[in-house]
């Protein structure tokens, strides 16, 4: 019988922009991950955090499994559920305090971190759009400009800490291979770790681009393909529906992730995250798979 659920993921598992998240410090009780834990009537430990990548997920889930085993939980009482994040996100442990409220000295890396995104087109559009409809941040703030201010202050901090300088070098000399290889490594490490300890688990992903990259990116690289072949993609939960597009005279179809499915079905979305109803219905869908896994 499952008595402890450990969840891993990014903001979509944390429940960013849901009403009960405050200052992005406490995961939401109404996120899909917590709703499934409730259905299982199990204690829930949600390690999901906004903007974090797959190495973060594996690091935190292994840590929590270690803690659980030390506290006397048996492997058969633990269930792990992970919604994998964007492959381009990675992390570095730095030699100073990152001035973030969580997880210092680990800092998350992503391709746009060398830019001041508050001035970017997508942010300007988001502000415009959300000034019109009733807007609310996770912390209750309703002023749309605050979004840009927040991004600007984060950029300033990164610059002062030398992270912008590092990111410029990093993203100048690396490309997709580095990131997708490391993401797949994280996925495989956690898979083998859980399998070897007979801990049951469910994997899914945020959106179709993640799944597609995991399956198809760098198709000729033998090191990437080795990892790919060892990962049990066939057991992953995919949301109903497919993203389709034409590529080289072929139609590519990739199963939906959480966000594709919410957009397809017109669920309400905050600035960039699905809101309560989408999480509740996603939890219903995923729970059906979870029941099969743990029976």
């Amino acid at each position, binding site marked *: 019988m499952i008595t402890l659920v450990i969840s891993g993921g990014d903001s979509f598992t944390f429940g960013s922009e849901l009403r009960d998240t405050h200052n992005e410090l406490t995961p939401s009780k109404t996120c899909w991950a917590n709703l499934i834990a409730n259905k299982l009537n199990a204690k829930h430990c949600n390690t999901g955090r906004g903007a974090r990548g797959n190495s973060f997920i*594996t*690091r*935190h889930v*292994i*840590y929590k499994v*270690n*803690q659980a085993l030390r506290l006397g939980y048996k492997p058969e009482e633990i269930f792990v559920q992970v919604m994998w994040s964007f492959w381009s996100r990675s992390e*570095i*442990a*730095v*030699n*100073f305090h990152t001035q973030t409220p969580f997880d210092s*000295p680990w800092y998350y890396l992503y391709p746009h971190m060398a830019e001041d995104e508050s001035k970017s087109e997508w942010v300007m559009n988001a502000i415009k759009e959300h000034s019109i409809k009733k807007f609310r941040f996770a912390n209750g703030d309703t002023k749309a400009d605050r979004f840009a201010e927040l991004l600007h202050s984060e950029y300033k901090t990164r610059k002062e*800490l*030398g*992270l912008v*300088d*590092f990111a*410029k*070098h*990093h993203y*100048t*000399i*690396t*490309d997709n*291979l*580095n990131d997708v*290889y490391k993401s797949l*490594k994280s996925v*495989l*490490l956690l898979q*083998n*770790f859980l*399998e*070897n300890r007979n801990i049951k688990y469910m994997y899914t992903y945020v959106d179709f681009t993640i799944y597609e990259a995991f399956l198809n990116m760098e198709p000729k690289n*033998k*090191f990437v393909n*080795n*990892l790919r*072949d*060892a990962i049990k993609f066939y057991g992953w939960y995919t949301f109903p529906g497919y993203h389709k597009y034409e590529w080289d005279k072929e139609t590519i179809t990739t199963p939906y992730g959480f966000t594709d499915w919410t957009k397809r079905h017109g669920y309400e979305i905050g600035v960039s995250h699905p809101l309560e109803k989408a999480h509740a219905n996603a939890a219903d869908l995923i729970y059906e798979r979870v029941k099969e896994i743990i029976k």
Partner: protein
Amino acid sequence: MIKLVISGGDSFTFGAELTAWPAAYNTPSPGSWAQLVANKLNANLYKHVNTARSGRSNSFIVRHVINTVHQALKHEYKREEIFVQVMWTFVARQEIAVNCDTQRSDSPWFPIDPYVCEDESKGDWFKKVLKDTKNWKESHDAMHERYLINKDLGLVDYAKAYYRIVSDLHDTYTSLSEILSLQELLDYNNIRYMFTYVNKHVMNGLIHPSGRDQSWDRIYPINISWTEKFTDSLCNFIKFDEWYKFPIDGKYVGFDDWAKFNKYEYATSHPLEKAHADAAELIYDHISNIRW
């Protein structure tokens, strides 16, 4: 019965500075401990793939061993016919896949360690090596040429930016994560293996940041000290007690410490043939006594 031995490691497993080096620079030495153990395991009847390369990291080791295991399983080796042996290297070594040709083997994967920031042929440690030492000129020229290429490619600047901000914790966590990855993959596939390590700095680096090479600290001072829950949790799952440790007076050390303590002959920085041969005897005894 073992039909395929796969070895992973750095220059100590490659067999750098042994007789076959540098004439056959890209081919692991037939005199390395790894080859000698493989010979003993399968009496030259079958195959040994030595994936080790000089100056490379634990990430490199895992990447290449996984690749070779994968190829072996594809080529119809049975799991029980494969044996993996790894001598883990220094945690400060990392790697990154870059978007240019590194002009070295394994491109576009680029090995990073603190020495990438400087021309190692002019560095402190090499100044102490006497010019009449075996391989001095080859080592000097190779290090100088490598520095010039790296500088041209922007890799020296990248490494400087990296070492300005990265912590010991990152190095340690990355290596532990790699080691656990390989252990879990081999366990999952029921493939037998033996893990050991180059020297005490490797082990200290995995367990505690004091294992870092002090000369690197002088160049890139590290101000952070830590005990870390994430590295602790990885350590908890890594089967260190099953690793082969070389014996010195009741203490346990790595290959390099053992060879130095026993005053085996060295070239610039690597033990020579006799040390490899005797190390192979010890390791083989250990492997023979493992209950599978």
